[in-house]
């Protein structure tokens, strides 16, 4: 049977919780704003994830992102990896002494987690779980307990909510505050933050900066929020305050003050009802 729906109705947390509790095996695909994410599970454990439509030859890129390979090394290896699975490539890299087995395990694990944590910020998207569909044997799979993933994802979700509240509109531009150079000299910025800095310009919206740097909404919000807090940048146009959410109507329904006791019905009456319904 199908397990499909929209993240509007079920959060990523709920879906992962369902997969964990029901110890499901299969692949969950989520499509959101032109992006697609795929996560595979075996008996309720997360074992693999990738973004996009092509899940082949990811290892070199993953190792580059984790700093185990330089961009140049990754490019050369990628060019020679044609037709090889990630497992075969990993074996070759270990044999050649480029990386250790632990490097590969940790990098792949972190890559899977980064993908899944990113999904916690998706509030809309079509999802579909295909039971018993698993990655082909050539892929490197690492079992990860979902409990800790759900906990960490929920924590990040809270952070996401705060960031969204502080920075609701990504279609605004940034500019440096007065004398940012002096401040920039005294602050340590990550590579991503420097990239964002290089795009700060009243002509670029935050969304455009994110796109140019291939950053998710969560990542760009976190970076920009940090810069705003540090006083490095300011809005060209102040973003409009987030619309106040309409009060939930959960309290609208009338509730009695006390829970009513069941009607006083004899056992024989219920037994007669059972016999009658059986005879229908």
């Amino acid at each position: 049977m199908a397990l499909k729906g929209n993240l509007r109705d079920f959060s990523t947390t709920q879906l992962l919780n369902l997969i964990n509790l029901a110890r499901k095996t299969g692949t969950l695909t989520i499509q959101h704003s032109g992006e697609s994410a795929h996560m595979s599970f075996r008996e309720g454990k997360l074992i693999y994830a990738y973004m996009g439509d092509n899940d082949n030859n990811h290892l070199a890129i993953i190792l580059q992102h984790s700093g185990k390979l330089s961009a140049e090394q990754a490019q050369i290896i990628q060019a020679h990896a044609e037709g090889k699975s990630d497992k075969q490539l990993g074996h070759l890299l270990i044999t050649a002494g480029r990386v250790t087995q632990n490097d590969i395990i940790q990098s792949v694990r972190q890559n899977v987690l980064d993908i899944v944590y990113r999904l916690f910020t998706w509030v809309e998207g079509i999802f579909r779980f295909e039971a018993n569909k698993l990655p082909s044997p050539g892929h490197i799979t690492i079992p990860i307990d979902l409990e800790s993933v759900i906990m960490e994802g929920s924590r990040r979700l809270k952070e996401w909510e705060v960031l969204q509240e502080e920075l609701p509109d990504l279609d605004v531009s940034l500019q440096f505050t007065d004398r940012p150079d002096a401040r920039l000299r005294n602050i340590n910025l990550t590579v991503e933050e420097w990239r964002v800095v290089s795009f700060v310009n009243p002509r670029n919206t935050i969304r455009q900066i994110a796109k140019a740097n291939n950053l998710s909404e969560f990542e760009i919000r976190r970076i920009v929020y940090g810069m705003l807090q540090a006083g490095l940048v300011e809005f060209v146009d102040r973003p409009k305050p987030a619309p106040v959410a309409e009060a939930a109507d959960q309290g609208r329904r009338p509730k009695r003050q006390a829970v009513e006791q069941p009607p006083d019905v004899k056992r024989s009456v219920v037994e007669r009802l059972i016999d009658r319904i059986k005879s229908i």
Partner: protein
Amino acid sequence: MQAVKMVITGPFSAGKTEFIGAVSEIDVVSTERKISSAAEQIKETTTVAMDFGRITVGDDLVLYLFGTPGQRRFDFMWDILSQGMLGFVVMVDSTKPETFREAKRILETFESYASTPYVVAANKQDMEDAWEPEDLRIILRLRQEVKILPCVATDKESVKNVLLELLYSILEQLDQNSQ
């Protein structure tokens, strides 16, 4: 004449009217009206006050089945309909995950009305897109002791099974209360 009643509740378009119609010995007294809201125009008519079905057990005993209106603006009727109920069935359209949250809210509201037993009917299990009952249990956060039953509201045997399971739960509660 003793009359006992059960309430069939659930979100809009969950299949409550069909459920009652499958076992009622009278044509369901249904107060359906043309749907005015564009958002709810999945079907042509909907229950605006209540459905009413009857199963006569004998000269001295009758079972009434009341279906609650599915649309939110009639939820003031729920309180009235739930008074004195023997138990209730929460119908869920297993093919419409967008209604599960509403089903959970309805379930919690009826739970707060009375401490009567209830079961959850995972309706439309004959459809390809239906979620499995045990997946619904997790999503609806049902306790293990709450029965969630596969159901096809247009199939009499399936509806009978749901009602019987509810009655077995009622018997169990009677036994526990008498101990």
